């Protein structure tokens, strides 16, 4: 007799638990306002990433096409993956001294793991992360970027 009661109790509890589950999904079905889907390519204009979002490493230039990179190579040393290659050149200053300047700051986006060590360790804050996140390209060579713009100069006052 006891097992018969157990049998029907099992049926009752089972059906009850199923109905509880169905009430959750059914509840969401009747309130479609709770959907979280973002219409991604359509909302590009309004899509704002967080300011600290690590999209890709960039070198900010000011309006006079000047950057802060001195070509010291600390970022290259600190990068764990060999993402950054600093090719420096020498320049003769007005006083006649030889000075090391940046020729090309090469950044391999395909190898970058976004650890942030280059940005953090740069002594002159020449590097920063941009909020760009659409990195897909059809040609892998396009992932290798030169960060300093052509013809750019070192910002005054940065050593």
């Amino acid at each position, binding site marked *: 007799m006891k097992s018969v009661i157990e049998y029907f109790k099992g049926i009752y509890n089972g059906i009850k638990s199923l109905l509880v589950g*169905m009430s*959750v*999904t059914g509840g969401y079905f009747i309130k479609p306002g709770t*959907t*979280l*889907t973002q219409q991604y390519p359509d909302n590009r204009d309004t899509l704002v990433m967080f300011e600290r979002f690590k999209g890709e490493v960039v070198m900010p230039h000011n309006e006079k096409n000047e950057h802060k990179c001195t070509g010291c190579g600390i970022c290259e040393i600190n990068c764990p993956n060999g993402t950054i290659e600093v090719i420096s050149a020498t320049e003769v200053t007005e006083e006649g001294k030889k000075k090391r300047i940046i020729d090309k700051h090469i950044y391999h986006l395909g190898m970058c793991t976004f650890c942030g060590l280059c940005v953090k360790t740069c002594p002159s804050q020449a590097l920063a992360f941009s909020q760009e996140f659409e990195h897909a390209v059809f040609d892998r060579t396009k992932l290798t970027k030169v960060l300093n713009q052509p013809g750019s100069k070192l910002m005054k006052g940065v050593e």
Partner: protein
Amino acid sequence: MEFSIYDFSSFTAWIDQSLRASMSPGLAVAIEMLIIGVVILIFYAIVGLFLVYAERKVCALMQNRLGPNRVGPGGIFQTIADLVKLLFVELVPIKNADKILFSLAPYIVIIASFMAMGALPFAKGLHAIDLNIGVFYLMAVSSMGVVGVLLAGWASNNKYSLIGAMRSGAQIVSYELSVGMSLVTIVVLAGTMQLSEIVQAQQYGWFIFRGHIPALIAFVIFIVASTAETNRGPFDLAEAESELTAGFHTEYSGIRFAFFFLAEYINMFIVAAIATTVFFGGWMPFNVYGWEGFNKVMNLIPPFIWFLGKTGALIFLIMWFKWTFPRLRIDQLLTLEWKYFLPINIINVLIMALIVLLGWHW
């Protein structure tokens, strides 16, 4: 010629007569056949496409998503786009597969669903095949699709498929009983197996109300068992994507896969339609005894809308199951059938018979 959307029998009779009057009887039958064939084909395609779209929308809303919304307004043409894409997908021939059985399987599942579709009473007179053993016929034909599933799994030369097919076999072997038993319960109440008569008998009350508790139990068992028979979640053990990747149709690609997909949805429609016919009064409108005004409004709605509406509600219920519950394991599936459904069902039939004999039903 008077034509009413509430009774199609005069309409079909008129077509028959005018055809026979203008040509030889043989040709008339052939043309009638052609008409029926084209109509049922179009209806089949529309139901299939709509149900795929509906399922995607329903599950999306239940899961806090939007679902398809890019092709057409609200994504309504998404299924058509998918279909076109599937048409242009390679039909991969599998190494060492049993080629004949492999290509035969989609035919079987589709033909089985077509033959079941033809026996459904959509409205009064809108009924292609009205057999006097209609219930029996539907049971027989709708379980034929499983042969296709078994063939597909066996012929694929794939271990997952084979396991899926075996599971499907075990499943059909069990749940066939429950479907049959719950239909017996209603046949006891109706006293006939002809579908049109079953619907007609529900003119003054649907069987689920007239047979009260036993009919309700029979309905619950029927809907669960037929979900299992159509291989839908939570009984989709033959596919069981997290265990068997895709089960019996792992190796099917392109349009061949689409047929299995289509057949699944059509079968869902068919079982919901059967449930509507035998439990919810088919195309009979919802009437409450004594509420004359209400009944008049209800009677204004055409019967095929009633039929499709009730079927749609049941399909929604089946979808709701699928998107809420986790999948059962094979032994639980069998336990559910043999230790719960079968004993309950047997007793249920007897209670129903007793109620009918004593005249306790409404």
